[in-house]
């Protein structure tokens, strides 16, 4: 694994333990992924807590950014679920910031992208769906199951419709997690491949003259990946809101 790292686009996703920890037979090693989870945690905490420590009426840069993040997510939650959904605001905000910072920090060279691991995104999506189901059942009881039974459907079609609704509900955590994971994975592989192109062309004699082409490409791709990083965090947050809205107001 030590050879040819410059060309291997998969290498960046390998989770390697930095400190082996085992708790009751379960591997709880502190890995490079764990390290960057902690980095994300510290970065978000720095922005949101250290940045707002002064509580200025006229905010500085950091406090402005923190307030912008707050108002952005708050308006998303309010717009999607109504004021009632604001009880889930801390959850949606934490998810948004965690995903956003994971994506952004992952774009820096030599870092690890936490959200490029399916297990991480699936765990986050599972948390969302679990919240939806538990809150929906606790609040509406069996009425929550009306989510799967749209009103005004011909009885003959009903079993079919319910089946489709159940499938669509079950596929939600999968689509939510795979969307984020695949975007991050594909983006980072593309960046790596383009970067490797530059290196390969430079070491290929006369072909070195066209090496600026992939370099330009990688610059454009990096900008694009920045957009994707933000967009995927936003999509994750807004879909969370949409699903939570179902828990708040089941029945179409």
């Amino acid at each position: 694994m030590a050879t040819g790292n410059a060309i291997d686009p998969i290498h960046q996703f390998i989770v390697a333990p930095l400190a082996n920890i085992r708790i009751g037979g379960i591997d709880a090693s502190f890995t490079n992924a764990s390290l960057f989870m902690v980095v994300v945690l510290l970065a978000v905490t720095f922005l949101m807590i250290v940045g707002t420590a002064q509580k200025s009426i006229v905010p500085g840069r950091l406090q402005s950014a923190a307030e912008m993040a707050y108002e952005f997510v708050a308006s998303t939650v309010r717009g999607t679920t109504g004021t009632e959904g604001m009880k889930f605001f801390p959850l949606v905000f934490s998810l948004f910031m965690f995903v956003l910072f994971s994506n952004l920090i992952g774009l820096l060279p030599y870092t690890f992208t936490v959200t490029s691991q399916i297990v991480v995104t699936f765990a986050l999506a599972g948390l969302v769906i679990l919240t939806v189901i538990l809150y929906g059942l606790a609040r509406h009881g069996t009425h929550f199951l009306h989510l799967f039974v749209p009103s005004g459907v011909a009885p003959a079609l009903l079993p079919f419709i319910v089946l489709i609704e159940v499938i669509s509900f079950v596929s939600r955590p999968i689509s939510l997690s795979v969307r984020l994971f695949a975007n991050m994975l594909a983006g980072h592989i593309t960046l790596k491949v383009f970067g490797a192109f530059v290196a390969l062309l430079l070491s290929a004699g006369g072909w070195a003259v066209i090496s600026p082409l992939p370099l330009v490409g990688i610059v454009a791709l990096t900008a694009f990946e920045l957009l994707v990083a933000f967009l995927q965090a936003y999509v994750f947050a807004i879909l969370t809101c949409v699903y939570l809205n179902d828990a708040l107001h089941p029945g179409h």
Partner: protein
Amino acid sequence: MATRETATSTTAHTEAPGGHAKGPFPPFDPNVFAPQLIWLALTFGALYLLMSRIALPRIESILEARRARIANDLDDASSMQGKAQAAGAAYEKTLADAKAIAQATAQATRDKLAADSAAKRKMLEDQLNAKLADAERSIAGTKAQAMSHVGEIATATAARIVSHITGKPADTAKIAAAIAATKT
């Protein structure tokens, strides 16, 4: 790592042809699921607690304070504006009052002066009229006096004429009566 690769090398030959990774595609490596999940739970849990307990309430209070401050300032500004308008109105009123008083004073003075000058003129006219009447009276007196002498002169003249014509003294009483008869 080495044990992980050997344990899974038999199952994963689908990824990365020509690559060197002997394990499964890294994001799908089930061996790293447990530590990932554990650390994700720890870090995300910590993040959720920090956000929901500290960061978000703090920002909410900051935004609330700012909203209150802005509303306060706007209230202050509008009350100031009200005061300024009241002061303006008071100023206008004082000005209008002062103008009215000044006009009234001017009018009173004008009236007084007009009355004074009218009185003086009347007095002067009265004096002049009195003098005129005096003069007319004295003229009339003088005229009457002069006219009273006319009779005597006429009588004397007539007597002379009569005595000259007749050669004998005239009866003055008859002449006076005759003249008096012609006068009337």
